[in-house]
């Protein structure tokens, strides 16, 4: 079989056994791989309404058909689960080299169920799967140490997907790490690994991925890479990377500052791209990627990667931290402990806010680095103030009687774009299928970076959130769903036409741009059905982000508010355009039109 390996590995941690079964190729044809195929498997494998913490609630690792084939940026892995934070679907993407190694070992997907009686590491060398006790040597290790241990003890070329102390302590924003700095960051897959007592999966594959005529395929990909990847549209990520967004977002009134109390940060020059370039050392690439956006730095003699924009925003400006050294150390701590930086920064910023408002003294204040730098470790161990911060923003704010200070959607902390500076993001956050997330659609591209759409109106935005603005490079929910089924990285501004050219190799037939979009819409509707089945909260965002009384008084977006009625109307417009009813339930006609093969 070309592109796919046609095999799924099932791991039962309760029994300590594994089994191989064929990949469902009917589903693959409909849903491609990555996000789409993951959601189709989740529909089947997640028992309806199950408690995400229960042993039978799976964590699924899914590759795309192009992992291991040299298609630029398509080496990503998606990890899926019913999130212990949100109770709905969570698909989290990670680069590095784990997904190609999984393919070379012979698997398109790995489905992990059960709960190990004792902490365990699973090693996979081609068709040999072993369960290795994680006590006393591996449990407790930080992410760099567990990876090094796997290279020493298992295979020098092992690629490892692991949790750090955060996951071991079942923190709901614990992530999965691979190649140390790469994180399947959001939604708490690390917490479920911790509950399942699974410290790490290490994989080594020596087999091949076939693509038909390998030389011809390679030559065509080289043409596509030269024409469409190594261009100005993408190489900004190599040359400057996401830190470049910091100053732009602050100037536009979009960067969350001091727990979302402003959209412009007065200390931005300390953490903007100019500040980052001073500590930057070199670039690295994920497997098979031509762009090479991974920016390494060195502070106080310690090498690390990042911080990327979301971390700069939420752990920098949002915590009032205007010092690139402190920010980089916080980032490194989170990487080593296996914590999502967005949720970590958000909860620290909330604790700073509660302290400064005199509600509860956590010893944390905006802009003060000392307590800030100790927070990640305390959170990961649930010690000291960390025991309370580990509740997450929603529960912590509620506990102290200030739910309005928690900036989350569906209990997933919001990333680094304040909708008061970019109105389109309000709909993006509200309708995101995994809660507070900026990766499903990106109105910022037009409203702020490109300047092709006005940022201070919701008019026409529901349409953009769904279909994007392909001519200007803005990604919408339908297109991101097919792009993440490939699985292409966000940093290749690939077009539907280019996706069609690559799909043609895999399925030996022509694809129209409309069909590419339709696959995405099919995937998005499947995700909606999953969320409705599991019980999703109403689509909404924190009220102050749209209510008149929530408008900023400082910064470039001061005085702007969407207006409650306007926001609610835009949400209804969104449902209508999607062919969903007023509660966001897809109509039978829409599901039939898209060929979605499941029903509530």
């Amino acid at each position, binding site marked *: 079989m070309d592109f796919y390996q046609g095999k799924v590995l099932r791991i039962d941690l309760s029994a300590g056994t594994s089994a191989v079964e064929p990949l469902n190729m009917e589903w693959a044809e409909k849903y491609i791989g990555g996000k789409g195929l993951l959601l189709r498997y989740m529909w089947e494998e997640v028992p309806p309404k199950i408690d995400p913490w229960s042993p039978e609630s799976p964590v699924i690792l899914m590759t795309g058909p192009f992992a*291991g*084939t*040299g298609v*630029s940026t398509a080496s990503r892995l998606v990890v899926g689960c019913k999130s212990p934070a949100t109770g709905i679907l969570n698909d989290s993407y990670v680069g*590095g*080299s784990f997904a190609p190694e999984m393919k*070379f070992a012979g698997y398109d997907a790995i489905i992990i169920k059960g709960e190990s009686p004792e902490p365990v590491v699973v090693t996979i060398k081609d068709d040999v799967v072993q369960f290795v006790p994680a006590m006393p040597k591996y449990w407790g290790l930080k992410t*760099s140490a567990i*990876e*090094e241990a796997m290279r020493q003890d298992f295979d020098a*070329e092992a690629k490892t997907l692991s949790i750090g102390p955060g996951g071991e302590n079942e923190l709901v924003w614990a992530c999965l790490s691979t*190649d*140390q*700095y790469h994180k399947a960051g959001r939604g708490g897959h690390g917490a479920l690994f911790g509950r399942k007592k699974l410290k790490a999966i290490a994989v080594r*594959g*020596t*087999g*091949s*991925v*076939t*693509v038909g005529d*390998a*030389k011809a*395929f*390679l030559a065509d990909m*080289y043409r596509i*890479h*030269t*024409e469409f990847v*190594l*261009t100005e549209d993408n*190489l900004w990520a*190599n040359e400057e990377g996401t830190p470049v967004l910091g100053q732009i977002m602050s100037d536009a009134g979009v960067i969350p500052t001091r727990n979302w109390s402003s959209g412009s940060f007065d200390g931005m020059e300390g953490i903007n791209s100019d500040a980052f370039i001073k500590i930057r*050392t*070199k*670039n*690295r*690439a*994920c*497997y*098979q*990627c*031509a*762009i*090479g956006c*991974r920016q*390494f730095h060195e502070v106080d003699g310690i*090498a690390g*990667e990042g911080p990327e924009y979301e971390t700069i925003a939420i752990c920098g400006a949002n915590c009032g931290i205007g010092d690139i050294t402190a920010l980089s150390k916080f980032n490194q701590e989170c990487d080593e402990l296996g914590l999502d930086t967005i949720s970590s920064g958000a909860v620290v910023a909330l604790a700073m806010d509660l302290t400064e408002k005199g509600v509860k003294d956590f010893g944390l204040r905006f802009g003060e680095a000392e307590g800030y730098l100790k927070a990640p470790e305390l959170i990961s161990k649930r010690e000291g103030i960390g025991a309370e911060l580990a509740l997450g923003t929603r529960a912590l704010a509620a506990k102290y009687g200030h739910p309005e200070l928690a900036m989350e959607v569906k209990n997933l902390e919001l990333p680094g774009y304040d909708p008061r500076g970019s109105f389109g993001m309000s709909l993006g956050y509200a309708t995101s299928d995994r809660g507070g997330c900026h990766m499903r659609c990106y109105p910022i591209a037009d409203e702020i970076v490109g300047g092709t759409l006005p940022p201070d109106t919701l008019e026409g935005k529901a349409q953009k959130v769904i279909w994007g603005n392909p001519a200007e490079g803005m990604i919408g929910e339908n297109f991101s769903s097919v792009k993440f089924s490939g699985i292409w990285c966000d940093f290749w501004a690939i077009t539907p036409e280019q996706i069609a050219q690559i799909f043609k190799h895999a399925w030996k037939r022509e694809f129209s741009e409309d069909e590419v979009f339709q696959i995405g819409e099919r995937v998005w509707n499947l995700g909606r059905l999953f969320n409705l089945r599991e019980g999703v909260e109403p689509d909404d965002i924190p009220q102050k982000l749209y209510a008149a009384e929530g408008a900023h008084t400082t910064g470039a977006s001061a005085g702007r508010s969407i207006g409650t009625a306007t926001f609610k109307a835009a949400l209804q417009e969104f449902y209508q355009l999607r062919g969903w009813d007023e509660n966001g339930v897809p109509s039978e006609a829409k599901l039939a039109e898209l060929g979605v093969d499941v029903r509530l």
Partner: protein
Amino acid sequence: MPHVMISSKKCTGCHMCELACSAYHEGAYRPSVARLFSECNPTTAAIKGHTCLQLGCAKCQEACPNDAILTKEITVKVKGEFAGKEKVGDTVRGYVLVVDEDACTNCGECYDVCPTGVIHEHPTREVAYKCDLCDGEPQCIAFCQNPHVLAVDLKVDKKDKELAQA
């Protein structure tokens, strides 16, 4: 003598050279059988390239008890596109070390002496395999996709240049 080198400073660790190598020699993407590899430490981002130095090393040839590592004359042409620009390559004449599969007994003597770890037993044929410069068009160089500089390149020494002029 012409040989391929991976620059540890320029390489981003994308492994495209290994994929191209295996596509050419094995007809599939199989980096574990690539004739060169880029060893990347994810934590420090340090990279070490492993390539065959051909006659500049020749330890495999010295160690072979069956004279199965042959010295073969070759003309190498660096060819390909690079970040949208055509790669202007030298044509270099020189020598390459190739495995005579009829003479090779897979005894393993060469595997133990190779200082860069790039000669191994083939996974499906019971013989050694190594870099043969792709009959003069090294695929690893042609498909190096570093956006700024060639990270996998052909190195030549004075003798090669003299030969090329002759």
